[in-house]
């Protein structure tokens, strides 16, 4: 029997583990960028395994297997975690999960609401803890119908998305504003001091480039609400909602590690339940709920009498191993999830036409396959050097909410960049090479017989374009067009302006055989408001049906 002291040490180890993994998570999040990489000559690449947490996530691995029937690239890394959970239980929730750690931290701050008996009662197992299995079953049903909406609530995807699209940009915006205020030089005699403060603040900004995202407020508010819920119900997210927790709970059903209760040693002090994270009833007299326990070890470390212990092959009399949910509920939930998919696809957005502004990142697979793979983690948006990728709202229907789309007015797709495909954990964006993208000739020549990978096509709004509508020189679009030869060409015309003078103008056109849809023209267009040139998804390589041209030819070099 392990002593009280051993458990205290182990609890310390758990705290260190939580801290290390949370720090690692933030570190990888900030490394999901080419910022600061100075390897000369080389193409910018990602050096750290920035997808680590997404790639060890069993929920993403198992659900993408359900929707795509393959285990993509590094999702293989989920296997050790699956196996270890089967052997030892939900230690991931208590020791590794950065979302769990954040919830743990917020729930641990002293509360006036949860004190004494109330706190004890709050940590008893509650029926709402069954919800997460329902959530899992709903997404399971949807996944059987190839829809991967589980990414909306997968804790790692949710945390990655919330942090990179809302928290980090908000933090940077705030710190930048404070730094600017401090360095404004309007503090009289204290100005040198405030300049110093401003200098320090400036260096606390996490990204040199100001990056902002559409829908960031909603994403941030959802995240804030989930964290705040801990103040009312300890680890409400982990206990009640988290589909990954539910899955790990199911996987731990036959776990060898479990709790052994020694009622004869118990003095009914109830200390074991005061800091219970999972709400799994460690007190003697109740059945310990294995599927709920995070293995945080607070109970055993707080027990002064050694009345409970964790051991391999415990006596199962005091343990309830499966989740507290009936087969009927599981089936109903799964059928609901299954039925939701055709309902979501009954919208015109998915099959008929769709939103023309839905331009997916380069290398994206076809839309149906895309929605079977995209977990909405936001890694592609986080890594994009031009802040060009943003979360969708309804452009791909409700099913595709918060998946990535190019918003060329904010940023264009950098011709030689393929980082979004590099970081995509699930292959919704294929890991293409610069050569396969083929927007800029490699070594000066197009080596492939294939046309370049297109994500869309540019169209002029002649009613807004300066040389077309206002007898004014411009062709900034042509200057920015990165293909070679340029997809934007112009005709020289002589036009009469308002004064009656004849002026020579260059009026631009798009060659659809050469345009790749990068959006640099839209980005650079000086016509503010609605641009005079815009990108539509038509012509995208990933969907041959979405094409104007009879035949796409590779460009002559």
């Amino acid at each position, binding site marked *: 029997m392990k002593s009280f002291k051993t458990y205290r040490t182990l609890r310390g180890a758990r705290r260190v583990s939580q801290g290390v993994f949370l720090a690692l998570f933030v570190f990888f999040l900030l490394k999901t960028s*080419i*910022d600061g*990489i*100075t*390897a*000369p*000559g*080389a*193409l*910018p690449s990602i050096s750290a395994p920035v997808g680590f947490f997404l790639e060890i996530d069993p929920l993403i691995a198992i659900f993408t297997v359900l929707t795509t029937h393959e285990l993509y690239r590094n999702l293989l890394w989920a296997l050790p975690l699956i196996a270890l959970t089967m052997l030892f239980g939900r230690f991931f929730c208590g020791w590794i999960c950065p979302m769990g750690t954040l919830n743990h931290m917020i729930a641990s701050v002293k509360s006036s609401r949860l004190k004494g008996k109330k706190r004890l009662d709050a940590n008893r197992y509650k029926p709402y803890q069954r919800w997460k299995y329902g959530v899992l079953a709903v997404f399971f049903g949807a996944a059987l119908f190839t829809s991967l909406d589980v990414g909306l609530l997968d804790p790692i995807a949710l945390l990655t998305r919330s942090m990179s699209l809302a928290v980090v940009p908000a933090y940077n915006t705030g710190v*930048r504003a404070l730094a*600017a205020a401090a360095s404004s030089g309007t503090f009289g005699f204290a100005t040198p001091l405030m300049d110093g403060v401003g200098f320090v603040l*400036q260096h606390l900004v996490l990204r*040199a*480039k*100001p990056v902002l995202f559409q829908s960031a407020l909603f994403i941030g508010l959802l995240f804030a609400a989930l964290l705040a819920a801990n103040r009312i119900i300890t680890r409400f997210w982990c206990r009640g909602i988290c589909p990954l927790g539910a899955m790990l709970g199911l996987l731990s059903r036959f776990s060898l590690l479990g709790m052994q209760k020694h009622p004869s040693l118990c003095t009914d002090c109830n200390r074991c339940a005061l800091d219970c994270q999972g709400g799994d009833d460690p007190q003697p007299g109740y059945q310990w709920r294995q599927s709920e326990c995070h293995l945080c070890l607070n109970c055993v470390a707080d027990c002064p009498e050694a009345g409970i212990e964790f051991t391999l092959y415990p006596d199962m009399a005091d343990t309830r191993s499966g989740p507290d949910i009936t087969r009927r509920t599981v089936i109903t939930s799964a059928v609901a999830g299954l039925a939701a998919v055709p309902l979501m696809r009954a919208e015109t957005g998915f099959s008929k036409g769709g939103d023309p502004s839905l331009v997916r990142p380069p290398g994206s697979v076809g839309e149906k396959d895309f929605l079977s793979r995209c977990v909405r983690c936001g890694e592609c948006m986080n890594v994009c*050097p*031009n802040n060009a990728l943003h979360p969708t709202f309804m452009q791909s229907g409700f099913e595709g909410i918060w998946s990535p789309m190019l918003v060329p007015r904010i940023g264009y797709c*950098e*011709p*030689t*960049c393929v980082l979004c495909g590099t970081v995509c954990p699930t292959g919704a964006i294929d890991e293409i090479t610069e050569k396969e993208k083929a927007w*800029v*000739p490699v*070594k*000066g*020549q197009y080596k492939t017989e294939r046309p370049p990978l297109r994500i869309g096509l540019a169209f002029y709004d002649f009613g807004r374009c*300066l040389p077309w509508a206002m007898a*004014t*020189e*411009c*062709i*900034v679009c*042509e*200057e*920015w*067009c*990165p*293909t*070679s*030869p*340029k997809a934007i060409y*112009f005709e020289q015309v002589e036009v009469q302006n308002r004064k009656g003078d004849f002026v020579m103008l*260059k009026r631009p056109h798009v060659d659809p055989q050469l345009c790749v849809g990068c959006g640099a023209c839209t980005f*650079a*267009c*000086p016509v*503010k408001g609605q641009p005079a040139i815009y990108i539509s998804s038509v012509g995208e390589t990933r969907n041959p049906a979405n094409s104007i041209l009879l035949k796409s030819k590779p460009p002559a*070099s």
Partner: protein
Amino acid sequence: MSSASELSRREFLTRSGKAAGLVLLTAGAGFALHTPERRPFDEKEEKVLLRDLRIPGVTQQMIVAHGEDPGAMTRACITALGGMSVFVRKGDVVLVKPNIGWDRMPAQAANTNPDVVRVVVQECLAAGAKKVIVTDVSCNDAERCFQRSGIAQSAGEAGAAVDRPVETNYTEVNLGGAMLGTQHVLRPFLEADKVINIPIAKHHSLTGATLGMKNLYGILGGNRSRLHQDINNSIADLANFLRPTLTILDAYRVLRRNGPQGGNLADVDLRKTIAASTDPVALDAWAGETFFGFTPDRLPYLALAEKYGLGSAAFSSLPVTDITV
């Protein structure tokens, strides 16, 4: 139930005092913050800034070097001008302004040759410069442009501070030009003691060619794409505002088509030439004719620049030294 008589004097005074204080405070704040009138237009005239960084009394001349090694040619040009010490004093902060506009490799000839940048930085430091800054406001992602052009490496190795432009590092300045009024100018261009402009000669659809003066686009942030609407006045305004100490033109490789970005090696001519001049107008006129076959009237900004007294497009009247390295 309490009656009025139970209210002590002290309590009466404290409570009345608090209430009255709050009322007065609010009223005071209201009057203090009250803005009786606000005009939507700022009447005050912004001072026009001019940065003339030329060395007074220097002989106007042009050096043209031919050879195989862009670095050696650059050094030969500087030597022929009398050495960098003619232009850079001990303790100067020198800003070297190459074209680092695009995410392109040196062979694609969209950015200034990195060896030219290296030698210019070395020469400035050898002449006693306190600090040499290499910067440009790139069009594409700056990190990519700086790296892929090879300039981050070559300038860094030569000892320069290679500064990627940061959004917070611009100042609004009135250029007082015919077209360009208040613009966002990258701060080091306003602070450096000397500016050495080192453009690359390449094709540009609107102007025909981008040479020395057009390279000064790279000092601007903000909405600079509007400048195309009157590109000749814009270029002349920029050149009038920032008069560089020296211009060294990289024509080792010349992009002939699909400029200013290019990409295709078939569009690049190997011309193996580096030219330097203290007269930016003459240099652009000469380069326009030499590499693109343009007479000076094909580049209307040259006449405007002449009008501002920035130099002479009649480059043949200038002493031109041809050297082969």
